[in-house]
């Protein structure tokens, strides 16, 4: 809000006093011409600013409400969501202007050397043409956690599935406590001896996820010298009896079954049949344990929670930098174009490397332009608002909170105009030094 006052121009220098009648009427005419602008400034800038400052010392509702002193400012620094907002704004100011300026500079210098300069610059500049709200929505879609929805996580899945493939039963769970997790797979607690039968019941498998060709599960009778067993979907409508092979329950084919000896070493591995049964032959006497291999339960890539509480601010920063890099590119490129070529040439003739030319000549000469970009970005970032509200889901907006958003929510959603005004004043105080810097520069340039 208060950031808008950057457009206000420095007051015109007063003319030297000349006490003639002609001059007085000239003053009057000048005053008349100034009047509309003065009224607009007064109504739209001076009055709201003064009112907001006064309002910040009063209570929640009404034109003024009750006097509360500095309570609103105390609230500002003690309410966790507001403190988060202040911290986040610090991160924004620390990261965005530097990145945008650096990226703009790199793009500008590099594009000087490519053939399709205009095309490249247009592409980088395009995001500026899209409203921040639309950008927010677009990035929100790209950031979706489900790889079926979010482009970025879809890319992650493509990479991860090239490296490893998900198991046949990634969601399955043991149906009884006899089966326990063991290094990503499952292991039957009960020890088995030759002739024994292992019952490996699984649940949590949707009917559509049962491997193809599955048939009614069959519990093997047991054979001497062998350990047999069955792995099956231990569920029928209503739940059925856990741990018991019942009519209507399907065997799970193609599941990797491991047989471990008493020291825990895998001695045999096999795959289950269409009815879920499996058999380890030629087992010498001793105690064994049967289990299901970890690869059966390997989960597919689930996606990063870009929009979750911990990644939301970085996600926002990336999207914001994407928007503004184009702006920096265009401004810096024009600065670059206006730069005296002979200086660069002189440096090159003196034997400077391209990097030295860049560091010792280009950057110092561009410094005024770079500072314009940097300061503009600081102001932009201090009052950042729309991208946060558009991109962050409601559940993480408190984690992604920034000062301008906190002010709007507190004042116009929570109807606490006192605290809202205090936040606005705080934001105003943050913007003032940057404004002062900007105004000083305007003066110098004039």
């Amino acid at each position, binding site marked *: 809000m208060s950031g808008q006052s950057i457009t206000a121009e420095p007051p015109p220098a007063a003319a030297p006093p000349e006490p003639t009648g002609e001059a007085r009427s000239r003053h009057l005419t000048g005053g008349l011409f100034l009047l509309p602008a003065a009224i607009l400034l007064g109504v739209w800038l001076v009055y709201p600013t003064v009112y907001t400052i006064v309002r910040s010392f009063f209570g929640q509702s009404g034109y003024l409400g009750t006097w509360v002193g500095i309570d609103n400012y105390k609230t500002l620094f003690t309410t966790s969501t507001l403190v988060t907002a202040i911290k986040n704004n610090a991160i924004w100011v620390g990261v965005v202007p530097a990145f945008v300026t650096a990226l703009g500079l790199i793009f500008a210098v590099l594009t000087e050397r490519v053939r399709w300069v205009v095309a490249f610059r247009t592409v980088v500049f395009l995001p500026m043409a899209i409203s921040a709200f639309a950008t927010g929505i677009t990035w929100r879609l790209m950031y979706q956690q489900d790889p079926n929805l979010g482009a970025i996580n879809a890319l992650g899945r493509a990479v991860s599935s090239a490296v490893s493939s998900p198991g046949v039963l990634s969601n399955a769970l043991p149906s009884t406590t006899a089966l326990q997790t063991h290094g990503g797979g499952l292991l039957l607690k009960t020890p088995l001896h030759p002739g024994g039968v292992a019952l490996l019941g699984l649940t949590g498998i949707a009917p559509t996820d049962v491997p193809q060709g599955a048939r009614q599960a069959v519990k093997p009778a047991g054979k001497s010298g062998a350990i047999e067993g069955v792995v099956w979907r231990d*569920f029928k*409508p*209503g739940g059925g009896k856990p741990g018991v092979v019942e009519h209507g329950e399907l065997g799970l084919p193609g599941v990797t079954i491991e047989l471990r000896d008493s020291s825990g070493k895998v001695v045999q591995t096999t795959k289950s049949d269409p009815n879920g049964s499996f058999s380890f032959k030629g087992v010498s006497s001793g105690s064994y344990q049967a289990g299901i291999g970890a690869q059966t339960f390997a989960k597919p890539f689930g996606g990063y929670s870009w929009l979750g509480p911990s990644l939301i601010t970085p996600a926002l920063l990336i999207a914001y930098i994407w928007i503004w890099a184009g702006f920096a590119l265009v401004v810096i490129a024009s600065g670059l174009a206006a730069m005296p070529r002979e200086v660069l040439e002189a440096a090159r003739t003196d034997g400077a490397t391209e990097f030295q030319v860049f560091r010792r000549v280009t950057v110092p000469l561009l410094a005024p332009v770079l500072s314009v970009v940097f300061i503009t970005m600081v102001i932009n970032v201090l009052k950042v608002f729309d991208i946060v509200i558009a991109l962050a889901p409601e*559940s*993480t907006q408190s984690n992604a909170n920034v000062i301008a958003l906190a002010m709007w929510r507190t004042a116009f959603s*929570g*109807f*606490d105009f006192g605290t809202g005004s205090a936040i606005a004043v705080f934001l105003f105080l943050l913007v003032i030094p940057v404004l002062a810097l900007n105004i000083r520069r305007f003066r110098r340039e004039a």
Partner: protein
Amino acid sequence: MRLAALAGVVATLVAVTAGCGGGGGGSKSGGTSTGNSSVKGTVKFWGIWAATEQKAFQKVIDGFHKQYPNVTVTYQSKGNDIPTVLSTAIAGGNPPDMADVAQPGLVKQLVQQGHLKPITYAKPTISDNFSPAWEKLGEVNGKDYALLYKASNKSTLWYNVNVLKQAGVKPPKTWSQLISDAKTIKASGTPAYSLCGSNGWTLTDIFENLYLRRWGQAKYDQLSAHQIKWTDPSVTKTLQDMAQVVGDTGNIYGGVSGALQTDYPTCVDYAFATPPKAAFNFQGDFVSLEILQATKSKPQKDFNVVPFPTITPGPNAKAVETGGDLIITFRDTPAIEAFMKYLATPQAAEIWAKLGGFGTGNKHVPASVYPDPITAATEAPLAGATSVAFDMSDNQPASFGATTGQGEWGIFQKFLQHPTQISSIQQQLESAAAKAYKSGK
């Protein structure tokens, strides 16, 4: 406001699909016809109902004109901006005769500012047709000021018929049945719950239903007004109830992080997608339209609805959280009084109920007037409700009860992330509430 808008769309749909609505219930005579023609005058009525809803209400008005031929009621739709429109009209000294608003807080405010007339003349008719729990919703400072003419039911549980069939469970009647059903459904391979964790209000709605059903209207009202602290044992107990669902993280579609990014109505779509992604969805009556529009599910065959599960037997077992349109009066003439009384009769409710998208607490409106089984299932429990309450946020400062990411909404999203830290959640709720209520003074 959101819900009112949704209800409007629901009405549109139901009215279209239910052209051949079932036969109405036996009409009871609303008033004596003798002397009716002596009542003369006009009534200017402003409301939020537009389009199909406006047409439906016009039929209700036509029914009134038959009884009172010399009174003319003119209805004007002002849309969802009605609070603004009304306050402007009041400031200009020219409010309408009657209006309908969806905000109980606005009614209270208008009474306190002295703009509304009490409707004590209609009290006998209202008491005849509505249980005290419903009548109370129109009271301000112990006096009748408003009639909740059109009500919605927020105490419903939607379920995917096919998922329950595959799991072999029946739709739950009680909370403990729901929890055990959910276990079976998980074993069948489909997550039980689809939550819209991205919208805090969907989570507080679950809490409010649970609190109302366990502790009843009186305690609910006290908690809404912060006369009971959020650290109260009753809140602890209710959060424990709720943790049985939100703490069953493996049984929530997408897990906690997925649910936190799922907004309303996406979670509705998930539960009724093909193939289904979850079995249950906790939402009010307003989602049937969303299901019909966004999914291929057919009513009763693929999706259905039951009353919100009962927590404890007894008087609060059938408690209902409601929302709806309250009718208020700015003036007091025989014509206005006649129309107000008429609106409290079963006929006035039945005319609209037959067209769909309408619920009422009027106990003389039979379930058979509702045009389809889903509407009957969602709206009929209203009349039988022994305990009724508005959304809690209607009585809370907005900074606590209705601000995105802050106050109650934000803290319940934290609860979804940390369902075991009940006492810490309660302390956060209490300190946020204390701050909001303190600065509200």
